């Protein structure tokens, strides 16, 4: 079983209890990027549901098509989602995403990784 993966836009790591996705520097996410990111995550997960820690601190833009895609098509097999953010820019990105999209799983943003992990542990249990 593969435990990690890297593409042009993100690095993926699977640990015992979660999937860790780190977006690469100065990334602008459009629909095409979102589709690749989701495709690779699903390939790596191979049907297993798990909580996801999504490090968006380097993201600089996510357009609406991508947001819509990530929220619906791209939300499968995720039991809970924690964004790791670095205010103010990524704070704003995650707030708008969370407040405008219907969330099918517990979702929250954190600046502190250990708090994010605690949240996922609490909400992402299968």
């Amino acid at each position, binding site marked *: 079983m593969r435990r990690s993966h890297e593409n042009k836009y993100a690095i993926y790591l699977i640990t015992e209890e979660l999937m860790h996705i780190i977006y690469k520097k100065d990334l*602008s996410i459009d629909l095409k990027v979102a589709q690749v990111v989701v495709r690779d995550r699903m390939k790596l997960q191979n*049907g297993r549901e798990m909580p996801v820690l999504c490090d968006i601190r380097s993201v600089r*833009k*996510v357009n609406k098509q991508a947001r*819509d895609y990530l929220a*619906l098509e791209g939300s*499968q097999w995720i039991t809970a989602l924690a964004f790791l953010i670095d205010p103010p*820019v990524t704070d704003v990105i995650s707030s708008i995403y969370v407040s405008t999209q*219907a969330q099918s799983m517990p979702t929250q943003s954190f600046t502190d990784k250990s708090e994010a992990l605690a949240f996922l542990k609490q909400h992402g249990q299968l």
Partner: protein
Amino acid sequence: MPNTDDFRVKRIQKMLLEMAKGNFFYTIEPSDKNDNIASLVVMLNMVNEEIGAAFIHQGFANAHNTPQCIIQLSLILNSQGKVELVTNGTCSLLACMPKDLIGKQITEFMTEKSQKTWSKKMIKHLKRDRSETVLFLELITNDGLILAQDCQISVYQALDGSGQKILLNSVFFSKGEPFETGLPKNKLKVTKGIKEHKVTLSQEDIEMIREVHDMILNNLDKDLPSLKDLALQMGTNEYKLKYGFKQIYGTTIFRFLTQERLRKSKTLIQHSNLSLKEIAYMNGFKSAAHFSRAFRDKYGKTPTELRG
């Protein structure tokens, strides 16, 4: 210069002015900084997209159930990419006069990224007599805002023998999701009349309907209760729920449910090893045949064909 706070605030003001006029198709280039102004720019871009989408939806698309294309960007270029003709719409979109555009290289009005895309792709297309493609281009307006759009590019031969020309077109206000490709059903309902059901919705009604919308999205795999039961559950009546939903989202509740189920199943078809039957049932479809048919109607391909 472009990085001073003063300059950045001016851009934000320009953008807000455009929004005030009802123009939601501009964006501001995000910076690589992580400061308050950068966060404001990001927020403005995202809010702009959200309002734009709602506006198309409620203000225009919904009225006749089809998105109307309001403003067209249209240019004719010679084979070197020099502008020969622009429409008035193009000039107002780019906030400049025809003379600012005519005779100029189109790439002068593109972001660096789009310049690269343009030169890379056009070499190939200009080798043929006739060619068509869609390119995602970012054009910079005279005010420094960005118009990011899918542009239809057609290469053709001028009849007067003046050689190869390029037609660049783009329309604003269109929906992201593809139209259904299946034949329209029950389109001709002459005897039934074409009565439009309009309901007056209070702010509370709108919020209730939004709640229904989100509830459907979060429970795509489950069966939806009948409209009557759903209305009862939401503390409203069937009529208001049915026509109010249609008014706000431009589609019926059940059609919306099917459409969203199909979107979700598409990623599973593409990226999972689940059988198509499993995917159909997981997404609330009663039979694989029904799933396959609905999927083809939306995406123009059956699930089997998509999986290949």
